[in-house]
């Protein structure tokens, strides 16, 4: 067993013995998606609620706000595409019955559970998040593009794009806060997975025990300070 990182040590700087859970490409994709999503939420809110029209001021007015929303939306498309590509294998497939057992006890997140079924790299909650982003993100892209150029399509069809866009917003906005909470103070030690790519061993043992076992067995586990050649992350 590796020494857990000592208290008081800044875990945002990888320490000896910490485990690599995400490579630089994953982290770049994550932040491209996160930042574009955040800008889209803020600019979208400015147009969705008249009382939020003031959000348009720093953009130089609501016309520019809409322009920023539309073009950041274009940036969101490849970010979403690569996110689905990158996490599809590990977070896109539910594994039964293991995942069902985990869902029955809500992963131990909501009430005390003596033994939570072990999960792989991502637990069913995270898989649900993946699907929410993949499905509703795609909805946002399709409805958003139609809303951008709405005049030449059947009116009755185009009319439904707006409530669908609002529904996608509802789901993504709500999940955004869940993701933010569980990625930071809700599950301490998680955030660095998306900054440095390294987490503590104890974190990995709790969050992705089956993945950890599998990686150790296959010898693919990357441990900070132990590999002969350390590739700059």
């Amino acid at each position, binding site marked *: 067993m590796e020494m857990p990182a000592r208290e008081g040590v800044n875990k945002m700087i990888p320490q000896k013995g910490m485990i690599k859970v995400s490579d630089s490409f994953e982290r770049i994709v994550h932040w491209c998606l996160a930042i574009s999503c955040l800008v889209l939420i803020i600019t979208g809110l400015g147009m969705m609620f008249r009382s939020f029209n003031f959000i348009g001021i720093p953009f130089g007015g*609501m016309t520019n706000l809409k322009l920023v929303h539309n073009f950041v939306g274009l940036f969101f498309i490849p970010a979403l595409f690569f996110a689905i590509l990158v996490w599809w294998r590990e977070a896109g497939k539910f594994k039964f019955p293991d995942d069902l057992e985990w869902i029955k006890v809500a992963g131990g997140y909501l009430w005390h559970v003596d033994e939570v079924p072990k999960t792989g790299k991502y637990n069913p909650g995270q898989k649900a998040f993946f699907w929410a982003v993949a499905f509703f993100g795609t909805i946002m892209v399709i409805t958003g593009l139609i809303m951008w150029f709405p005049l030449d399509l059947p009116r009755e069809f185009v009319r439904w794009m707006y409530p669908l866009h*609002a529904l996608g917003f*509802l789901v993504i906005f*709500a999940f955004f806060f869940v993701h933010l909470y569980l990625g930071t103070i809700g*599950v301490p030690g998680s955030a660095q997975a998306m900054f440095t790519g390294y987490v503590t061993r*104890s*974190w990995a043992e709790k969050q992705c025990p089956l993945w950890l076992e599998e990686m150790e067995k296959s010898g693919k586990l990357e441990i900070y300070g132990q590999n002969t050649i350390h590739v700059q992350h």
Partner: protein
Amino acid sequence: MSEKVKLFDLSKCIGCRSCQLACKQWNQLPASQTVNWGTYQNPPDLQYNTWLLMRFQEISDGNGGVKWIFRKDACMHCTDAACVKVCPTGALFHTKYGTVSLDVSKCIGCKECVIACPFDVPRYNAEVNKIAKCDMCFSRIDATLEPACVKACPTDALIFGDKKEIVEYAHARAEELGGDASVYGDQFVGGTHLMFVLPDKVPVYEKLPENPRVPVSVIAWKDWLKPLSLIAAGGVLAGSFLHYIIHGPKDTSGNGDAGKGGGE
């Protein structure tokens, strides 16, 4: 300030199009090149620079003859206006007269009103990225004048006045005409501020919806999903906070009773 209504009595219209012209003049709307497609109706449809269009129809009078129909098509100025409901910036708004006006400087060219309108009225002008439609001559009626189209009408087919009086007159006129004559406008979308006296049944008239309403999609979007999205986000935020102070964060430190309690 009392609500104002403009009434168009089709039985009195002679199809001279003075109203259409007066609208263009007062609002300084340029003309677009069109082609003759075998009708007096010109341009073929409402445009960003044609806010009032006389629609010409020829129908059978039932005795082997032809009957002409002239119908004024323009913004209906709904009380429950779908366009005002969807406009993200408040560019479209209700005036104190109940009419729907447009603050062009606030329009961002999103075209949401174009899609939402049950009467297919707002038109998009790509050149300036704005929409355009009849505002019932807001600048005129606010100066106690009648709209330009009403002013120009030589037969009083178009009249303008306080809602109560006009609605009363419209119903009396429809009764006077008898037969299939009816009043169009006060029975849906909370009442329109452009109303018609129609000598024939509604389906006879082109592009005149029988039962116009704010689209269900607009209600689902603006009345249900919009507030729901804030409730959902607020609920999640409150839930996360409660989770943190009641259940507590997950212990991932590996210290002490790791693996027990604290919620794996």
